[in-house]
């Protein structure tokens, strides 16, 4: 198999033009002791048919959400994806293009990126969004580091109610550049004049909707930037952080039509106030025109980027998650203003119905009292891992045992309910939970 089209005659003629006798000759600059002898220790080639079969067999060792009824979220969500999304996005013109360095040959993609940026701004209430980041977690880390370079301060105050993986990424990338990360529950108490930024999640990792106004005021009072890691689906109904005064809004946009894909490829988004536009990491597309005045789009503010600014760039990011941003763009277009709102409302209604029914079970209660959007921490009164495993046997992916990250919550499951769950499924789940907690 393989994808090399050369015929024997092609090789012969090409070598002749080059002026060598064998392909080997072209490698003469590689010292012979550095050459691989014989074949690598890799399995043999598979023809296409066998390849598909083999990969199907490996896949069948997974239990997917095709056969489980899932209440698991924690940053990655199952949502309705219109059939048109993948069919449009996988068109070869999109799939096999690269970064639109040559704008005239890439107007299609450039326009979709401009549209992506605009829609993300509409959802977050911000003025500028970039073309995408790797994922929500690394986007948050980038945001903190951006706050460092904007403020010159090195202290990052990070809410403990931010997704643990987000916080881990912030830790990984902050320390090497000499910044310290303070993870706290009560943010207000620790903001000081050295604080570069305050980072909160909205809704937070536990699904809670807290009013951000106070913390934003407090941070701004100390000259710190406010970074909000926001869930785009929840922003279908919640006041957007831009309206509340956030300086930077980041997040994970997987929920906007991107397959869960075992956690990748995802697509982070990154928004800032217009005043911060020159500090934003990654690519941005802007509108322009050709000499006949025809509208066109180009990557703009390029001098921020690594290929031009090198060690002084706002970030090292180069390849981003453009295709997933396109997925989100088509998804947002397909659902539109009305459909997007409906998704969010239905998630909320489903989740609150599930919560009401679950909390009727003896020994089952909410961990927190605050209002929530469509995810909530449930105390199941018993070891959450055990309950999760029992429910798995009934065909449910019951949610995330929180003790994996918060040992102080051994009996808590983090449960997400999106619009794809029917009332019947929720009712069955509640019945299964009842059985499990009574077992």
């Amino acid at each position: 198999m393989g994808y090399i089209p050369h015929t024997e005659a092609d090789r012969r003629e090409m070598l002749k033009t080059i002026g060598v006798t064998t392909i080997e000759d072209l490698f003469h600059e590689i010292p012979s002791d550095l050459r691989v002898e014989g074949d690598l220790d890799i399995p043999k080639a598979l023809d296409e048919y066998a390849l598909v079969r083999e990969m199907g067999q490996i896949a069948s060792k997974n239990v997917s959400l095709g056969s489980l009824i899932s209440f698991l979220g924690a940053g990655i969500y199952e949502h309705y994806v219109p059939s048109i999304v993948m069919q449009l996005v996988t068109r070869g013109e999109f799939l096999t293009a690269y970064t639109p360095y040559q704008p005239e040959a890439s107007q299609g993609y450039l326009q979709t990126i401009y549209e992506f940026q605009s829609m993300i701004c509409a959802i977050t209430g911000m003025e500028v969004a970039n073309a995408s980041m790797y994922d929500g977690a690394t986007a948050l880390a980038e945001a903190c580091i951006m706050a460092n370079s904007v403020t010159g301060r090195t202290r990052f105050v990070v809410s403990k109610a931010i997704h643990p993986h987000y916080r881990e990424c912030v830790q990984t990338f902050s320390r090497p550049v000499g910044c310290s990360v303070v993870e706290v529950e009560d943010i207000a108490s620790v903001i000081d004049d050295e604080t570069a930024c305050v980072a909160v999640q909205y809704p937070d990792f536990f699904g809670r909707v807290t009013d951000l106004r106070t913390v934003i005021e407090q941070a701004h009072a100390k000259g710190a930037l406010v970074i909000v890691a926001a869930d785009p689906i929840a922003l279908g109904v919640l006041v957007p952080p831009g309206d509340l005064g956030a300086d930077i809004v980041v997040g994970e946009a997987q929920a906007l039509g991107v397959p869960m894909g075992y956690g990748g490829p995802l697509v982070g988004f990154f928004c800032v106030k217009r005043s911060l536009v020159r500090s934003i990491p990654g690519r941005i597309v802007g509108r322009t025109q050709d000499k006949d005045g025809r509208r066109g789009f180009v990557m703009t503010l390029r001098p921020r980027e690594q290929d031009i600014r090198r060690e002084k760039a706002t970030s090292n990011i180069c390849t981003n998650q453009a295709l997933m941003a396109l997925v989100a763009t088509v998804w947002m277009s397909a659902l539109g203003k009305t459909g997007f709102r409906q998704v969010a409302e239905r998630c909320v209604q489903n989740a609150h119905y599930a919560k009401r029914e679950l909390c009727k079970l003896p020994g089952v209660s909410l961990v927190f009292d605050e209002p929530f959007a469509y995810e909530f921490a449930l105390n199941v009164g018993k070891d959450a891992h055990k309950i999760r495993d029992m429910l798995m046997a009934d065909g449910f992916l019951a949610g995330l045992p929180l003790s994996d990250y918060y040992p102080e919550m051994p009996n808590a499951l983090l449960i997400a309910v999106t619009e794809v769950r029917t009332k019947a499924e929720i009712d069955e789940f509640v019945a299964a939970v009842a059985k499990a907690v009574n077992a």
Partner: protein
Amino acid sequence: MSDFPLIFERSRDGRTGCTPPATGVPTLELEELVGAGNLRESAELPEMGELEVVRHFTNLSHRNYGIDTGFYPLGSCTMKYNPRVNEVVASNPKYALTHPLQPESTVQGNLQVIHDLQTWMAEITGFDTATMQPPAGASGELLCLLLIRAYHDSRGEGHRDIVLVPDSAHGTNPASATRAGYRVQSVRTNERGSTDIEDLKAHLSPEVAAMMLTNPSTLGLFEDNITEICKLIHEAGAQVFCDGANMNAMVGVTRPGDHGFDCMHLNLHKTFSTPHGGGGPGCGCIGVKSHLEPFLPRPVVTKQTGAYKLDHDRPQSVGRVHMFYGNFLMNVRAWAYVRAYGREGLADIARHAVLNANYVQARIEHEYPRAFERTCMHECVLTAKPLKKFGVRALDVSKRLIDYGFHPPTNYFPLIVPEALMIEPTETETKETIDAFCDAMLEIADEAKTNPALLHKAPTVTPVGRLDEAFAAKTLDVCWTDAQAELANR
């Protein structure tokens, strides 16, 4: 022709498109549920019918060039054929519909894919182990530097704070070094296009933490004395990182791990055919020697008594570098790609990539001379300097190529080559395609001499002509608003 409408310009109040599933549950007042004062008005997304959405993106796709539409010799990017079977296997719901926080027992297939690929990538690159976590090349570079930093720290050499980077390096190298908290020093390229060893020696000091070396270099040349260079750096107590963006020249032929490197990154979206998707997703991978293994990011995929596991218990780990485990579905594609060639075929990739690049060089170097008089590897770096006297720049040549139906090569990189044209044909192109491209290049050279205006006006076959980048930077319209819609309609 009027401008191609933005999707917002197609929107109509009250129009609806795709409808999400109806919830059958009893509902309550929304504001009661999410808290008073927390509700918003609906976000101003476009309001479109389904067919209109299909048409919008279908017609936008017609305004975009891809490998599927034609030759894409963008140097340093390895725009090879993206096999469609990879898309088929990766869209299997048994991969695509798995959640990253499912219990390990339910994702043994996923973990096998990752583990197989780690093993194969280590074997192909000559390192002791590999991780698939970085979502792209730059994040792989940064990760390698974080490992090096942790390694130095673990040996009490945390004071080392300089990273050496060749003047020919890709921009992500210095940028990643900064992100790893290092100062960057530049090392010169010599007259053969290789590292200037004297200059290197001059830079080596106890403060140097690492050198980042691209091999083959961004000049498309195999580094002279690579073993010696690695030895020198090691003697100075520093580590050597290999930028593996150019692995396509080496697959199955030579292995950076054997050259003396301590670690390297790969771009699976280059060498291993995962699609570039208009700028991403990429898929990184790093290979490391065993002394760096303790520092690998969490979690590490391991295999124990037949079962695959996510090992979080890595006390020396640098931490987490991706929200989960990297761009997993790209791993699925890369797995399929490796097995499509298999042990017996992998070396053919590099062999034909190098053949094609040298063929391009041989065919057109009389008009576009090589930057260095050497056999190139998977790409050739030529210069359009001879055309400068006709008022023609590399960019003009590139734009004119679009009129001939080709995607231009990379321009003006590496920075040390004036009027650089960096041409990477890849192994999946036919001789005829390459000949047609070379013919166009030669014809353009003639045009440059006889009718340079043709080049300056190019491209003319595209929906828009050359775009005003300064205008974009000045106006900074990066987000559609009603006000801008009005502007655009004027």
